[in-house]
């Protein structure tokens, strides 16, 4: 099943914020985790995650920090801010409204 492009784009912000709410992380790990959680059905074009992260940072929802990655390289880790958590809560309510509405409609359909 291929997910609609707009839907993927719209879900990127809450997914990234929710994942960072569990702990600091970096781009590659976030993508891997999303693929795992969705059973491979939610596939991002890898590069596209980074503009999303940078935008969130600009908006003050996350901060970033370079940390040593062990093999002489550095990795840019992202951490959610207080504003970011508030934004996540707001997005969560919005998604619940959509989800609840659709659920109500489709339950009726299946019982009718």
């Amino acid at each position, binding site marked *: 099943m291929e997910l609609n492009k707009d839907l993927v784009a719209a879900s990127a912000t809450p997914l990234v914020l929710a994942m960072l709410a569990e702990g600091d992380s*970096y781009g*590659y790990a976030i993508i891997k985790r999303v693929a795992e959680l969705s059973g491979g059905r939610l596939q991002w*074009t890898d590069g596209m995650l980074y*503009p*999303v992260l940078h*935008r969130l940072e*600009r908006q*003050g929802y996350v901060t970033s920090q370079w940390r040593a990655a062990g093999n002489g390289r550095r990795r*840019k880790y992202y951490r959610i*801010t207080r504003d970011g958590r508030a934004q996540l809560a707001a997005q969560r309510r919005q998604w619940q409204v959509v989800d609840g509405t659709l659920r109500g409609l489709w339950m009726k359909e299946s019982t009718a």
Partner: protein
Amino acid sequence: MTPFAGQPLEEQIAQWRAYVRRRRVLNDADVEELEGHLRDQLAALMEAGLAAEEAFLVAVKRMGDLDALSREFARAHSERLWKQLVVTPGAPEASAAAARAETLVVLSLAVAAALAVKAPVLFGIRIHPNEELPRFYARNASLFVFPLLTLYFLWKRGWEAGRGLWLALPFAAGAFFANVYPFRTGGDTEALAILHLPIALWLAVGVAYVRGRWFSNGGRMDFVRFSGELVVYYVLIALGGGVFTAFTMLLFNAIGMNAAGLTAGWLLPCGAAGAVLIGSWLVEAKQSVIENMAPVLTRLFTPLFTALLLAFLATMAWTGSPIDVRREVLIAFDLLLALVVGLVLYAASARDPQAPPGWCDGLQWLLVLSALAVDVAALAAIAGRISEFGFTANRVAALGENLILLANLAWTAWLYARFLRGRGSFAAVERWQVAYLPVYSGWAALVVAGFPPLFGYR
């Protein structure tokens, strides 16, 4: 087909990096981040059993189309676009034709501005070299030029005529207040209106400039950048104009003729008006070519002004001499504080919002704090003067401006402190500064429209 085939992995990665680097919206840190991702992906794929070459192809493919990626980066970092306009690479022939059309439009508008300045002569209002500049010109200075500049942006950004017409309203209101009020000759309210009308109307130019991006995509910050660059260009053009004027006088003097009528009556006023449009056009055209000047000047003068303010505060504390509240002094203090706000604003406009706090930010914070202290001292002096001698238009205007700048600086200092301690992002400082822009114009509009009747046109 792929240029990367058949080479050792490191070399392929190096080639990929060089290829990515050519995208000018991506800076070194972005490339490093993307390369780190590519290497993680490669390691995982090779672990899963792919050969190095296959793994490389898969990893690059998953990274996605670089054009689309650059576009997304450009959207996330619109401030970089200011320097490198990559989003709409038009066909070369089309853009050449567009550039010619733009040149024509700008030159016509500049000529129109020059003619507008001379138009009042038809009604007997002349600029004469040996007399004082008629007050009519001082009151209407911005009205000769800003509507034409607005027109230029309406044309350039492709507004529909109907929506653009709304922007005629502020200019009509400005013309009304500047010319219908029965100002007493040499009164303070007239001087205040002359000073404040351009500030109020500049917002209308800004609305045309950003075209619907006022609240999004860094539109307001782009307008701030544009304003700063325009000032730099305008000063440069004015310097050239001064040299030109001097030579005109010199040459005609050499054959025993006085060219003062020509230079003072035509050259200076027409040049001053036309230069605003030419300068704006240069800023628009060159923003992709050269580094911005305003941020460079900001860097240069932030330490100097910080030192000046600190020295001033120390001296005032040491000698205990109070601020002498005369009109010129009050205006000088307002200008000084406005300049500090300008320094903060332009430092913000040039800063990479993602960069961590550095010593420059510490210095900015110090500048804001010392400006706050100076502002409080000035406010105390003005308040003392008002309680002693009552309200006048000048004092209320100075008081209002001081309070507005005080509010801005106080909140800026707070946001800066949060940022320096790693509690907040720099984006908050930037957002606060651009959100405050309409306050200046709003207050200026109030001074122009409300003060004259309030203080009896004196």
